[in-house]
Structure formats: C-alpha cells, structure tokens
C-alpha cells in the first residue's frame, strides 16, 4: 500500500470517528471534532495535493491558517 492509499484509509476512519464522537461523547466534543478536522485537512493538503514536496512557505501558510481558524473557533465556543 502506498502513502496515498494509507492516507485515504486514515481519512475515512477519522471521518467515522468524528461522526461517532458527536453522537456518543458528552464533553470535549468541539475540541475533538476540530482536531480530527485539522488532521483530515493536513492529510488532504500534504498527501493528496503533494504539499509535502512544496516549499516550506506553503506548508507553513496552511498550518498557520489552520492554527488561526481552530483557535478562533475554540475561543468563541
């Protein structure tokens, strides 16, 4: 299995886990769901979009966007 296929399996598992968390868990739902979304976002951008081979500027920009987005959401929540 190549890295892209492994990424696909992990992304599907993370999607199922995030759907289950929102039904089963009573606390820390927001942070859990957001962390899983961030992991999926990184999986798609770095492995499907091949960002892992790009200049550090682009990798850093995506990570900074994710950091700003999730922290803002968590602060508001």
């Amino acid at each position, binding site marked *: 299995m190549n890295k892209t296929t492994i990424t*696909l399996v992990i992304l599907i598992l993370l*999607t199922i886990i995030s*759907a289950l968390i*929102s039904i089963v868990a009573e606390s820390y739902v*927001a942070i859990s769901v*957001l962390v899983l979304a961030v992991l999926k976002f990184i999986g798609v951008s770095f492995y*499907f979009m091949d960002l892992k081979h790009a200049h550090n500027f682009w990798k850093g920009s995506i990570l900074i966007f994710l950091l700003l987005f999730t922290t803002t959401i968590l602060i508001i929540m």
Partner: protein
Amino acid sequence: MEVTKINYKNIYYPPGGILMWIIIFLELFTFGIALIAMVYSSKESPEIFHDSRLHLNATIGAVNTVFLIVSGFCMAQSVSFLKQKKINKSKLFLKLTMLGGLLFLGLKGVEYYDKIEAGFGISYNSFFTYYWMLTLFHVIHVIVGLVILTSVYLGLSKSKSETKMEDVEASAAFWHMCDLIWLLLFPIIYLLF
C-alpha cells in the same frame, strides 16, 4: 501530452501553481471567516443552533465527506499516473473522481429536497441561513470543479493531446480545494452545535 519537470521546492511553483494557491487561500479565508461568524452568531441563540443542527442528518454529511475524500484520492492517483505517462489509467481515475463529485451532488440534492420539504428554507432561522449560504456556495465550487475536470478529460482523450501537466495539476488543486472547504464545513455545521 507535454510534461515539464517542475521543482516544487521553489517558492513560486507549489503543486498546482502559485495562482491556484492564491485562489485556494482566498477561498479558505472566505469560508473560514463565514464559519467563524456562524459560531459567533450561535452564542446569541445557542438553543436555536443546537435544535436546528439536530434537523441535519450527520450520516448524510459523513457519507458526503467520504465521497469527496475518495474522489480526492482518485484525483491524486490520476495525476500520479499521468506523470508516469499512463494516460488510460489516469483517465480512468479522472472518471472515478468525477463520479465521486456527482455522487456528492446527488446526495446533497436529496438532503436539500428533504430540508425544503420540511420547511427549513434559507429564511427559517439564522442557523439555516448560514447552512444554505455556505453549503450552496460550496456546491457551486463542486459544479465548477466538475466542469474543469470534464474539460481536462476531453483534452486528454484527444489523439494528439495538448494538455499540459501544469494544467492538470492546477485542475487537481481546485478539486482538492473543494475537499478542503468541505472538511471545514462538515464538522462545524453538522457536528459542533
């Protein structure tokens, strides 16, 4: 089929091209700010947002996420095969990519039909205003993505294809952007409140 060796480590040549990445960041910030506004609005009337969220079908949202993720995987495979000059395999995965997009749109259509039938239109409450605006704006991106992928497919199908690798990569980047946006929309709209 023209293939030029691109050094992706160069800051000006990210996979898909610098212009496409500028568009990707603009779109991510647009959707990101709208989602932040939605979460901020939910603080004013948390009960409405919670009750409204329960009217959404998270299973449909999760299945649609899987459709887009598998579609994104097929797109990545299509680009990979094209780089190896395996045109037929690349076209097969491109068709699978488009099938994933069509399945997404089909299921979204079913979901929209249910919501309209139940009376949850755009003006029902503030939650559904955000729901319709954000998801419809995303659906428009998916439709545009499908049109772009169709043109790439037709270009690759020509006997003397003039499609450039950069064009295919830019199209792939646009398609993955639809995936990235949905990965932000799904947890916040369907699961968070």
